[in-house]
């Protein structure tokens, strides 16, 4: 089992990725190739949250 600090660090990276993706989506509002591709990126980030960030919350 990974230590709590390392888990928290990974969860922070994932949060940063989410923030960047959402910021990009907003910046690209109206441009479908940005909006739709970021939607797919966010779906993958959500899985990282389930696989890592959720574990950090209960560790």
């Amino acid at each position, binding site marked *: 089992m990974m230590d709590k600090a390392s888990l928290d660090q990974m969860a922070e990276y994932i949060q940063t990725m989410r923030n960047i993706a959402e910021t990009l989506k907003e910046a690209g509002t109206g441009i479908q190739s940005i909006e739709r591709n970021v*939607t797919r990126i966010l779906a*993958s980030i959500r899985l990282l949250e389930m696989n890592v960030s959720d574990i950090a919350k209960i560790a």
Partner: protein
Amino acid sequence: MESWSPYWNPLVETLPPEKLNALQLMKFKRSLEWAYQNSPFYRALYKKAGLEPGDIQTFDDIKRVPKIEKSMLRDTQEREPFPYGDILSVPLEEVSAFRQTSGTTGVPVYHAETWADLDWYSEGWAYVLYAHGYRKTDRVFVPFGYNIFVAFWGGHYAAEKIGCEVVPGGVLDTKARILKMKELQCTALMATPTYVLGMADTAGKALNMDVSKELNIQKITCAGEPGASIPTTKRRMEEAWGAKVYDHIGSTESGAWSFECMEQPGGLHVNEAFFLVEIEDMVTGEIINEAGKPGKMIITAFDRCAKPCVRFDAKDVIKWADYRCDCGRTFRLIDGGVIGRADDITKVKGVLLAPTAIEDVVRGFPELGDEYEVVVTKKGEIDDILLKVELKPGKDREMEAVLSRLQDQLRLKTNLGYRLEVQPFGSLPRFELKSKRFKDLRKGGH
């Protein structure tokens, strides 16, 4: 040679049980809140029961949450928005794929998938395939057109995610599929147990080929039927292909919730990071936590977006295992996979009969073919069970002795007597997807 972790995600697969429980409770609350806030169907159900999401604070509270079942899902389809009904929990324009159930138990249920759902579904499958030993060096053959059924889409994308090379063999016929697997030296295969046996049979008959010697398949992932958890059926498949055969269980409503690992302990791990599986006593309705006692599975799939699955009464009968697995996963085991369907396990002559028990006996006889059919009828007031089997070619002289031993074994394993009928080899129906070998005609069924 690159070395790989035995786990897709060791962070959750080796989580201590108390942490796993905490994770499940957190995710259950989140899924309940999502369903309540976004699905008119769920909100109405919970309001009628006087339940607010905030009422659920402990594991014990979960049993207060009303269950749903397939008939309710069908009913929602009668309402807007078309075609999913008011269970839909995202705007219709966010739905990216249509799926439906196979309709084995009645009118098919429609399912909406967003991008997030499809990723989630594939992730669940990635846990399954990684536990079956799929790695990025594998070339995986999928001998089905995936069509409107979600299962093999999930398997396909999960294999891709793991890094495998996937060969979708849907448009080919059985012979062409076998030849393509041979040509490409495929190392893994996903199929229903019925079709795994059927392909080996076709290879022998039509191509004079022994798939265990001429193909390079090393592992087979089974889906759709319980065969890979029935010891004699698993043995037949493993012998026919010279490969390891692994089971997994999933459904359109829930996702891929359970899988066998490479230790093959006799049971399947429940993916407790993605699902909450409860086993309910079929008489008292109490939740069963002790090992060995069968009951109905109630399943919650955490974090599904478009069509939440909260406390779904799947009608699958399962039991917790009383043994642990050496693989190191802390996910609990169910013993022997799905024992049967609550609506299939039926009383015949006053005795509870699970069709899987008959299959286990029939396939334990090397003189008999893979196919069989059970027909239950009523003659006057008495139930009658007709079991049709096929003798393998060249075994005619042993027929009497085989049938006598078969009758003995059936009585021993199921406590019932059968009328036995031998059909010409190759004459019973063959199936590619889900088979229908048990027919209860007592109430006008078919």
